[in-house]
């Protein structure tokens, strides 16, 4: 098993956090993994991406030219990166900030109005978790529960208040993905 997921968005959207939580979940599931971020150098704002490779053996290259899977947080991310998804791959797109229309028919598509859903759940900040939930569901890379547990590990104690909302977001995302993929 080797799964590559690339995530992209703007600073502040929680791209890196989503990546780290998934990485932690994979670690706790006993998998090998490699995660790395690339971002523009502004202290605030600017673009943010990360790549996570999860494998049940040696990870090999952490750098991936054509990732199998992507989580794209907004329209700019879709414009910049969608092209690169490996044929047969999967894209999770936040349709609150991007249109769901894409010029690729060789990939699977999950479109989630994640920001709106997160807002409904009480916090736009949880957008990344909605998308992550959808991704976990669609990819099956780890159990959703593992991700929920990872939240406890990765979030600093003082942010544990947010965990319930985040868990709800994860679950809602997973649910929507499941519905779409059926």
């Amino acid at each position, binding site marked *: 098993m080797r799964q590559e997921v690339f995530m992209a968005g703007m600073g502040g959207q929680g791209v890196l956090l989503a990546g780290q939580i998934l990485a932690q979940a994979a670690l706790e599931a006993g998998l*090998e*993994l490699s*995660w790395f971020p*690339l971002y523009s150098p502004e202290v605030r704002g600017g673009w943010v991406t990360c790549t996570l490779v999860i494998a049940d053996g*040696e990870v090999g*290259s952490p*750098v991936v*030219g*054509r990732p199998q899977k992507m989580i794209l947080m907004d329209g700019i991310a879709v414009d910049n990166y969608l092209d690169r998804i490996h044929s047969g791959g999967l894209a999770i797109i936040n349709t609150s900030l991007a249109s769901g229309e894409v010029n690729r028919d060789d990939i699977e598509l999950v479109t989630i109005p994640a920001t709106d859903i997160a807002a409904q759940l009480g916090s736009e900040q949880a957008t990344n978790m909605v998308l992550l939930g959808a991704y976990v569901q669609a990819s099956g890379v780890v159990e959703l529960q593992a991700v929920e547990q990872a939240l406890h590990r990765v979030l600093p104690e003082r942010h544990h208040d947010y965990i319930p909302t985040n868990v709800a977001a994860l679950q809602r995302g997973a649910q929507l993905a499941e519905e779409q993929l059926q």
Partner: protein
Amino acid sequence: MPERQLITGNEAAAEGAIAGGCRYFFGYPITPQNRIPEYMSEHLPLIDGVYIQAESEVAAINMVYGAAATGAWAMTTSSSPGISLMQEGLSYMIGAELPCVLVDMVRGGPGLGNIAPAQSDYWLATRGAGHGDGRCLTFAPFSVQEIYDLVGQAFPIAQKYRNPVMILADAVLASMREPCALRDRLDPPEQKPSWAVGGDQKGRQRNIVNSLWTDPPVMEEVNLRIQQRYRDAAQNETRWTEHGADDPEILVCAYGISARICQTAIEHAAEAGIACRLIRPISLFPFPTEVIADWAQRVKKVLVVELSLGQFIEDVRLAVEGACPVERFGRTGGMLVTPEEVAERIIEIA
């Protein structure tokens, strides 16, 4: 097996040093390795260690020089421009036969450049150390675990050869998170080396740490002694890994992050029917010349992958010595290559 934690390369470098027995850190912030000094500033004071933020990289390496003179296991870390500023200090350390460990998280250059990953400090690391015939022993990890391990191992190596040891990584390795098995922290050695200054000097000859040898024959002797240590290191510390086919058509040479990329690239190439072997030098100086020379006799071509414009390839060519064609593939200025691109290139030249 000790617990594995998800940490960055920077954290691995910092914790690896502490675990290896380092308690003295002198550094100046620079992206992409700021997490190292930050980690040190938090952890060292808790374990009777010293974290000093130097006023500059020039000061940092000279603080390390002073610390090393006392026999302390000392370290500094930086990224490309900062390493450039340490060149005189490194030359002094070599001349005075002092050990230390330094880490270069290479970024795009030249000049201020950018903070993206690069391997364009290859010469700076392996041929650098300023003026004179000295060099840094140089090791290039390719994973977070290996950063942790090598940084820790670097201290006794530096002491053994009384020479700076450089850990050469890059912006990706610095910020990458991977599971890393952390060992217990070793205590620093209690016994000071015989040449160390300070402490109670009663009843022993005074020690002098010096790189001034006015008399050329004496200076030459120092140099020959240093070169002998390099030859010893070549015997004992040359490290590399090999991956891939036993009967390859193409030999791929890459180190650090490029080698990680090539690991996957040669799998792609194999799928396309081209057998490759990847030699990954871990020690860049001493360089695993022989193994490359051996394989070069048996392959059609050598492909060198480096994130620089023709630096690492020279060491490979010096090993291959014309036995077969050697080609380069790579990017620079903060650009990465992908496994797909490398595989394509392999297929092209095969």
